[in-house]
C-alpha cells in the first residue's frame, strides 16, 4: 500500500463537484430501520456509554414520542417517515489515528470525491480537524498541540467517556431534550459529533474545524456538538459540510450547544453545502438544526453561516444573552436555487443588562426557490439598555422565486433600543449590462453582484472559509439566469 500523505489528500480535495454523486462501499455496521426504546438503548450500548447517558437519551425519546413535527415554518415538503430510517451507521473499523497516513485509503478516496475543498487553503499548521464520517469520528489531528494548552477537542462519544463531568454538566443545558421535535429526536439518537473545551484564559491558537458527512443511504445524521469556552477563553470553530447526492431525501437533525462563560468568546462559522436536490426538485437533504449558545457576563458569541445546500433548511442559530454586557451576533448568507426552501434566522434573547445583539441576514433566491428570514429579538424586563440592530436584505433573481421576512420583536423593557432595516432588491438588467460592457459575462456578473451583496457577511468568515464560500455562492447560482 503506497503511503497516502495529508498533502496528497489535500491535493485530491481541491476539486468539488456534486455532479457525480457517488456511494462508497465502506462496510457499514447499520441498524435496522425504525425507532423505539430498544433502538435508543442499543445505540447507547453500541457506543459503550455510561448509564446516565442512556437514561438521558431515553428521557429524550419519551419526550419526542409525545411531540409533533412543527409546521409553522414557511416550507412545504413530504414529512420524513421516522420509522423508515436507520438510526445508526458506523464505518466498520474505527480505530483512532494520530495521522491520516494510517487511515483506510478508501475512506480517504471518499473524502477526495466529496471534495472537501474547504481544506484547500488550510495549512497543516493551522487547522486541526475532527472528521466525522457517517456520524463516527475516524481521524483527529493536532490533538497534541491542543492538549498542551489543555484544550479538549474530540468526538462527543469520547468526551462522554473521558470527560463525563463536563458533558453531564453542559449537555442539554442550552438546548434541553424537549426543546423541540428535532432536538428531542437528536437527543435520543445522536450518533456522534464534536466536543470542545477551552480552559480558563486560553486563547485557542488555531481554528477548530469539523467536517460532517452523510454517506449512507437512508441513515439520518444526528450530530451533537458541544463547545464550552471557560472564563476568559477564546475559540473559533469552523463547521463545513458536503454530502453525496442521492435521490431519496436524507434527514439531518443536528444540535449544537455553545457555552461562553464569563468574558469568553466563541466564533462559530458554518458553510453548509449539502445536496440541494436536482434541478427538478428531486432529492436533497432535509436540514433541521437547532443551534443555540448561552453567554455569561461579558461573553460574546458570533454565529456566521453560509447556507447554500439542502432541499429544506430549518435553522435558527440563537444566543441567550444571560450575562450583563454580553454580546450576540448572527451573520448569515442563505442561497436558494431551483426548488430549495430555506427558513432560517436567529433568536436573540436579551436577559442581562447592557446586552447587545447584531443580526445581518442576506438572502439570495433564484429559480423557483423560497427563502425566508425568521428572527426573534426578545428583551426581557430586566434587560436594561439592551440594544439590537437587525438588517435583512434579500436579493431576487428572476420572477419565480420568493423572499420573505418574518421579524418578531418582543420588548418588555422600555430602555431597549431596537433597530430593524430590511431591503429587497433584484439584480438589474442595467447592472448586468454595465458588467457585460466591461467584458464580464452574465454568469460572472451575477457572481460578482452576489458576492458584493453578501460582503458584510463574507467578511466575518475566517479567510480560508471566505474564499471557499465565494466559490460556493458562484456554484450554487450556476445556471440561475439564462
Amino acid at each position: 500500500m503506497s503511503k497516502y500523505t495529508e498533502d496528497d489528500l489535500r491535493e485530491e480535495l481541491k476539486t468539488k463537484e456534486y455532479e457525480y454523486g457517488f456511494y462508497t462501499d465502506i462496510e457499514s455496521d447499520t441498524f435496522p430501520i425504525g425507532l423505539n426504546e430498544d433502538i435508543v438503548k442499543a445505540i447507547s450500548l453500541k457506543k459503550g456509554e455510561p448509564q446516565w447517558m442512556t437514561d438521558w437519551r431515553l428521557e429524550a425519546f419519551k419526550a419526542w414520542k409525545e411531540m409533533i413535527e412543527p409546521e409553522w415554518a414557511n416550507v412545504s415538503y413530504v414529512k420524513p417517515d421516522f420509522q423508515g430510517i436507520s438510526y445508526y451507521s458506523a464505518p466498520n473499523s474505527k480505530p483512532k489515528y494520530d495521522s491520516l497516513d494510517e487511515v483506510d485509503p478508501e475512506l480517504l478516496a471518499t473524502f477526495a470525491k466529496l471534495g472537501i475543498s474547504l481544506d484547500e487553503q488550510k495549512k497543516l499548521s493551522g487547522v486541526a480537524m475532527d472528521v466525522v464520517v457517517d456520524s463516527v469520528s475516524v481521524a483527529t489531528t493536532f490533538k497534541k498541540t491542543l492538549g498542551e494548552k489543555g484544550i479538549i477537542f474530540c468526538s462527543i462519544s469520547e468526551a462522554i467517556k473521558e470527560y463525563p463531568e463536563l458533558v453531564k454538566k453542559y449537555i442539554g443545558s442550552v438546548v434541553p431534550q424537549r426543546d423541540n421535535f428535532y432536538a428531542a429526536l437528536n437527543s435520543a439518537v445522536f450518533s456522534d459529533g464534536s466536543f470542545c473545551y477551552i480552559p480558563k484564559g486560553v486563547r485557542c491558537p488555531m481554528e477548530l474545524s469539523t467536517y460532517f458527512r452523510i454517506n449512507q443511504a437512508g441513515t439520518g445524521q444526528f450530530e451533537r456538538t458541544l463547545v464550552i469556552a471557560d472564563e476568559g477563553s477564546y475559540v473559533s470553530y469552523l463547521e463545513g459540510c458536503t454530502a453525496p447526492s442521492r435521490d431519496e431525501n436524507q434527514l439531518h437533525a443536528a444540535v449544537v450547544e455553545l457555552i461562553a462563560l464569563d468574558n469568553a468568546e466563541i466564533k462559530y462559522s458554518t458553510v453548509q453545502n449539502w445536496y440541494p436536490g436536482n434541478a427538478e426538485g428531486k432529492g436533497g437533504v432535509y436540514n433541521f438544526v437547532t443551534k443555540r449558545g448561552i453567554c455569561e457576563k461579558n461573553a460574546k458569541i458570533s454565529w456566521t453561516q453560509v447556507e447554500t445546500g439542502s432541499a429544506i433548511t430549518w435553522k435558527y442559530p440563537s444566543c441567550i444573552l444571560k450575562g450583563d454586557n454580553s454580546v450576540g451576533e448572527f451573520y448569515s448568507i442563505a442561497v436558494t436555487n431551483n426548488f430549495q426552501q430555506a427558513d432560517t434566522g436567529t433568536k436573540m434573547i436579551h436577559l442581562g443588562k447592557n446586552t447587545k445583539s447584531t443580526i445581518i441576514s442576506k438572502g439570495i433566491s433564484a429559480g423557483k426557490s423560497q427563502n425566508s428570514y425568521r428572527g426573534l429579538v426578545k428583551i426581557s424586563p430586566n434587560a436594561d439598555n439592551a440594544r439590537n440592530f437587525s438588517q435583512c436584505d434579500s436579493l431576487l433573481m428572476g420572477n419565480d422565486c420568493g423572499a420573505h421576512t418574518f421579524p418578531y420583536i418582543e420588548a418588555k423593557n422600555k430602555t431597549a433600543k431596537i433597530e430593524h432595516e430590511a431591503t429587497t432588491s433584484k439584480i438589474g438588467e442595467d447592472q448586468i449590462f454595465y458588467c457585460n460592457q466591461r467584458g464580464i459575462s452574465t454568469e460572472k456578473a451575477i457572481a460578482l453582484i452576489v458576492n458584493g451583496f453578501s460582503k458584510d457577511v463574507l467578511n466575518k468568515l475566517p479567510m480560508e472559509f471566505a474564499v471557499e464560500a465565494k466559490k460556493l455562492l458562484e456554484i450554487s447560482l450556476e445556471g440561475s439566469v439564462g
Partner: protein
Amino acid sequence: MLKIKNLHASIDDNGVLKSILKGINLEIKAGEVHAIMGPNGSGKSTLASVVAGKEEFEVTKGTVLFNDEDIEDLAAEERAHKGIFLSFQYPVEIPGVSVTNFMKTAINETRKAKGLEEMPAKEMLKLIREKSELLEIDRKFLSRSLNEGFSGGEKKRNEIFQMAMLEPKLAILDETDSGLDIDALRIVANGVNKLKSKDNAVLVITHYQRLLEYIVPDFVHVLLDGRIVKSGGKELAHELEEKGYDWIKEEVNA
C-alpha cells in the same frame, strides 16, 4: 474602425415597438475623434447602447461593422473584448464590489477571452497606480463600492479611469462632461487625450462645446430624431452652442 450603415433600432415600450434610430450612417476611422451633439431624446445614448450591444434594443435594419466585422450577433461582453468601451451617461451602482475588484475582474475576463493568463497581481497594482495617478484619483476611492454614493463627477471620472485601465480601441463617451467641475473636466479630458493614438478612436457625446475645446474633434455630427442631419468640423459645435438647434430643425424641415 467603426462603420454604421443605415442603422434602425427600436425598443419595446410596454408592448409597443418604438422606433428610436431611424437610419444612422457614420464612419469613424482609427486616429479620429468624432463628436455627436443633439437635443435631449434624439437618440444619442441609444446609439451608444446599440453599438455596445445592449439587447433591449432591437436592430431592425442596417449594420454595424467593427474593424470590418459585422458585430450584430456578438454579445456585449464580446464586443468589449474586441475593444469597444462605453463611458455611461448614468453609471450603475454595484454595492459591495470595490472599484479595484471590479476592474480586476473586467481585465482578467477580457484576458481570459483572449486566451491569456490572468494579470499578475503586481502588474495589476502597477497599472492601477499608474492610471489612478493619470486621473488624479485618490487610492482610497478605489476600495469603495463601485459608484455607490459617488458624486456625479466622481462617477464620470471613474468611468474614464476604467477606460484608461482597459485601453479600448473605440471609446464612446456619453456625456462624460456633465457633472464634472472645471478642474475635473480638464483632468478627465487630459486623461482621454493621453490615451489617444493613431490606432484608436473616440466618439464623444456631449451637449456643450466646452469639452470639445479639450478633446478636439475631427468631426461633429448633429443627431436629430434618430438621424444624423448635419456633419461638420469643430466649428459646428461653436455654432450650435451659439444658436441652438432650431435652425437645424428648420433646415431639415425645409
